[in-house]
Every structure is written in structure tokens, then in C-alpha cells.
């Protein structure tokens, strides 16, 4: 076996660079996604330090990254949690969808995109990054706050909307005449419903099929199953990512919990490669012309997400400061906006650069604004906050 020195070296340097940037980002409780994108831009074509040898690996890794992102998204999904969120937050979910998808759709229309481009851009501005938001709430110690269930409910409803949206978008993006598209959409929706049914009625049986006390066995089985289903899905012109998502949806309970734990490190690695690949695929020279549009879109959808969060929190009876915290928490867009572009990106010249810079802006602005949101002034002020004396 010949050891590909150039590939190892380039990959090693890239990963080390990502690690340094990631550490910097974490220090300021920022999301590293924006920095990964930036690194991708820097090492891509037209960037400052091209990496020809690692290109092929990054491309393959990115495909696996999308599959793992969606597999874990499917695993996160639990019908019980969804039902609880539904009971209280259907209006919040509607407000979320209308307020945040509309600006994307209008922007797509103004930029002269076709139907699929408009649909994709609407999805990209709609979906908050559950990865960034959940991490942020945990890092800022806000999981105990009263506004947090409202924020998490909105995220769960968004994930559910993605379950219907992504397969449909994937089918539409694969092209064909109108009746093929309709058949494809019906098949996609059918597949999602089938996955839900399987998960609801036979989830434990399926879980027993892949479950194994040994973590290594569990990892190999779930990953093997997901990749095979993903390949089959791609083969029938659905999307590989959607196939993996369906596998994730069908696994529930203890198996899902353990699978999440064993898959997470792998997902983090390959998701980083995916963000890198998105950066790689965009020529920095293409970013400049779309930057004004991305900034305007970011500004508008920043405000609409804040309104969404404030509305959702107010339904739970949260006070003024909590409403601001909920509003700003939802701003960040990230992985799924990029997944959407990954599904249709090659069909559109402007969509890739536009959404990349859009995510770049909001993946940074979201965490910064959330940190600035009204919160207790710091440990020094504890004595004044009226709590009972320590003795």
C-alpha cells in the first residue's frame, strides 16, 4: 500500500487549523461553523492556500458528513416530544414558518431564481441551526430558564417540517417533467410517513435488530444500514441524505440514545469536513456580488426570528427579558441551511455563494446577539438579586 504523503499532510494541516479556529470560537462562545466555512474558502479554488491532494477526500467526507448530520437529526426526533411541542406551540411554528420562509422566497424571486431556487432559499432562511442553538443554551447555562422549552419546541417543529421539506426538495431538484415530480413527491412523503409508522409501531423491533451491547457493533450496524439505505435512496433519485434521515427516524428509545452517543464524534468530524467542502465549492470571487443581498436577507430574517422567538416565549408566559433571550437564541442559521444548498446547489450559480455568506453572517451574529441578550449582570451582582441569605 502506498501512503499518500501529500493527502495526509494537507489533511492534517487542515484539521489542525480547524482545531485552532474552533478553540478560538469556543472561547467566545461562538459557533465554529462560520470559521469552518471561512477555512474552506481559504483553501479552495481562488483561495490563499489551495489543497489539491485533499480535495477528493474532502468531497467524499462531505457526502458522509451530510448523511451523518441527517441520520443524527432523525435520531433526535421523538414522537413524544413532538406531540408535547405540538400541543402548545403550533401557532409558534406557523409564525416561524411564515415570518422566516417568506423573506427567503421573496429574495429568491427578486434575484430571478426559478421555483426550486425560491423554495430552497425559503428553506435556508427558515431553518434555525438546532446544533448551534442547543449548544449555545447549554454553554450560557440557560437550559433551566423558563423561555427555553419554547425555544426548543420551535426547533423540534422545524426539524419536523424538514422531514417533509427535504425529501420534496430533493425530488424536485432531481428534475423531470411535472408528473414525474408529483409522483416523486408523493413517494417521498409516503416514505416519511412509512418511517414514522415503523418508528411508532415497530421501532423497538428494529431497535433490537441493530442493538448490541458493544458500542463498536452498534456503530457498525447503524452506519452500515444508513449508508446502504442512503445509496438506495440516491439510486432511485431521492437523496442519500434523506435516506439516512429516514433510518434515523425509525430508530427510537434506548437504541437511539446510545446510537447518538457513539455517532456524535464521527458526525462532528465529518460535519466539519462538510462545512469545509461548502466553503471549498464556493469561489471567494463569487461572494462579493451576492454580499449585499446576503446582508439584507440576514438583517431581515434576524428580525423575523427575534419576533418568532418572542412570540413563542410569550405563549409560555415568559417576561420581557426572557422574551428577548428566546428571540435572539433562534437567530443562528447553520448546518441545515447548508444541507439545503448541498441538495440543489449545483443547479444554481448564485444560491451557493448567497447561502454560504448568509450562514456565515448569521452563524456569527446569532451567538453574539444571544450573549448580549438581557441576562443577569454577572456573579458580582448576585448579592443584589434578592435571593435568600447564604447562611
Amino acid at each position, binding site marked *: 500500500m502506498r501512503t499518500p504523503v501529500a493527502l495526509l499532510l494537507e489533511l492534517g494541516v487542515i484539521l489542525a487549523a480547524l482545531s485552532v479556529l474552533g478553540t478560538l470560537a469556543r472561547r467566545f462562545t461562538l459557533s465554529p461553523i462560520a470559521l469552518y466555512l471561512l477555512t474552506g474558502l481559504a483553501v479552495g479554488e481562488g483561495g490563499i492556500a489551495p489543497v489539491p491532494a485533499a480535495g477528493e477526500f474532502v468531497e467524499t467526507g462531505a457526502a458522509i458528513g451530510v448523511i451523518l448530520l441527517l441520520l443524527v437529526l432523525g435520531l433526535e426526533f421523538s414522537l413524544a416530544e413532538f406531540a408535547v411541542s405540538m400541543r402548545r406551540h403550533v401557532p409558534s411554528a406557523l409564525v416561524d414558518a411564515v415570518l422566516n420562509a417568506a423573506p427567503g422566497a421573496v429574495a429568491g424571486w427578486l434575484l430571478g431564481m426559478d421555483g426550486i431556487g425560491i423554495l430552497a432559499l425559503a428553506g435556508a432562511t427558515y431553518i434555525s441551526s438546532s446544533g448551534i442553538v442547543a449548544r449555545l443554551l447549554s454553554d450560557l*447555562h440557560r437550559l433551566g430558564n423558563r423561555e427555553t422549552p419554547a425555544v426548543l419546541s420551535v426547533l423540534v417543529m422545524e426539524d419536523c417540517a424538514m422531514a417533509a421539506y427535504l425529501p420534496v426538495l430533493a425530488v424536485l431538484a432531481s428534475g423531470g417533467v411535472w408528473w414525474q415530480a408529483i409522483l416523486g413527491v408523493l413517494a417521498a412523503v409516503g416514505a416519511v410517513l412509512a418511517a414514522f409508522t415503523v418508528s411508532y409501531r415497530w421501532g423497538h423491533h428494529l431497535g433490537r435488530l441493530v442493538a448490541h451491547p458493544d458500542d463498536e457493533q452498534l456503530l457498525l450496524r447503524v452506519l452500515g444500514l444508513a449508508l446502504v439505505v442512503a445509496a438506495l435512496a440516491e439510486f432511485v433519485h431521492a437523496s442519500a441524505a434523506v435516506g439516512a434521515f429516514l433510518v434515523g427516524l425509525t430508530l427510537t428509545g434506548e437504541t437511539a440514545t446510545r446510537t447518538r452517543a457513539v455517532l456524535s464524534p464521527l458526525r462532528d468530524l465529518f460535519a466539519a469536513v462538510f462545512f469545509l467542502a461548502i466553503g471549498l465549492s464556493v469561489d471567494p470571487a463569487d461572494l462579493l456580488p451576492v454580499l449585499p443581498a446576503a446582508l439584507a436577507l440576514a438583517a431581515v430574517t434576524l428580525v423575523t426570528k427575534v419576533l418568532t422567538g418572542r412570540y413563542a416565549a410569550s405563549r409560555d408566559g415568559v417576561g420581557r427579558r426572557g422574551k428577548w433571550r428566546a428571540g435572539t437564541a433562534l437567530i443562528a442559521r447553520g448546518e441545515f441551511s447548508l444541507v439545503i444548498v448541498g441538495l440543489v446547489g449545483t443547479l444554481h450559480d448564485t444560491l451557493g455563494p448567497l447561502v454560504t455568506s448568509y450562514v456565515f453572517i448569521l452563524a456569527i451574529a446569532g451567538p453574539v446577539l444571544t450573549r448580549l441578550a438581557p441576562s443577569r449582570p454577572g456573579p458580582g451582582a448576585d448579592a443584589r438579586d*434578592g435571593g435568600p441569605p447564604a447562611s
Partner: protein
Amino acid sequence: MDVTEVLLPGVGLRYEFTSRRGERVGVVARRTGEFELVVYGAEDPDEGRSVLQLDSEEADAVAEILGAPRIAERFADLTKEVPGLVAGQVEVLPGSAYDGRPLGDTRARSRTGASVVAVVRGEEVIASPTPRDVLAGGDVLVVIGTHEGIAGVEQIIRG
């Protein structure tokens, strides 16, 4: 005391209660097994101040420290829900046949069908004791089983 349970979708659960002193306390239980203890100030009742973060092992230790005196009581509650199953307490008298011998030697479960679920030794509670745990005079065994089973264990221990 009422404990409110709030679902945190995708994260876990939050438990909340107000202590007798009027302090509102929250416990965030993550799906990953970590716990966070928060208290809510008067200034912004929506915002919790994080007091303590525990991994699952530390949380178990704290639960054992805080909850140990209540363990026997809780077993008793449990048996109310299962008809035919009762909890009983059997004392190992100092100098009796099993004073200083491992629990396994009593072969209580195989002989009576009743299980020794905890050993209370003064302030200390050994929850789910193993057959290798050595008994001492003054220990109180918490036994769960049928009435006959518990009577059987009592007979064995008395010798």
C-alpha cells in the same frame, strides 16, 4: 411538595419545585445523563442561576447522600402499587448465625423467593447488596416479596 416536570425537547427534562424557605429550585436532567442544578432569583423569575453541574456518576453519588435515609420508605411506597408484593424489615441480631457472614450464605432468595433489596446499617444504606456483602449484627435487611417469603427470610436470619 409538588415537583413540576417540564419537557425540554431534544435535551431532556427539567424538574422544578419551591423549597420551604421559598427558594425556587430547578434540576435539568439531560438525556446524556448530566445534571444541572439551578436556582431562580427574584429579580428575573424566568432566569435560572446555574449552581452545580454533575455528570451521571457524581449525580448518583449526590442522590445517594441526600436520598439514602429515604430509601426504605420509597421501597415501601413501591409495594403499594404491586398487589401481593410487600416490603418488610428483618433485623440481624448481634451474635446470630449470620452476624459476620456474607449475604449470599443465607441463600434467602433461592429458599424463599423474597429479595433483600437494601441493607440499612445505622446511617448507612447499602442499596442493591451483592451476595458478597458481609452482614453485621444490628443490620436491618429491607426485603421485598410475598408475606410468606418475608416470614421465611426472618426465620433464616433468626436461625
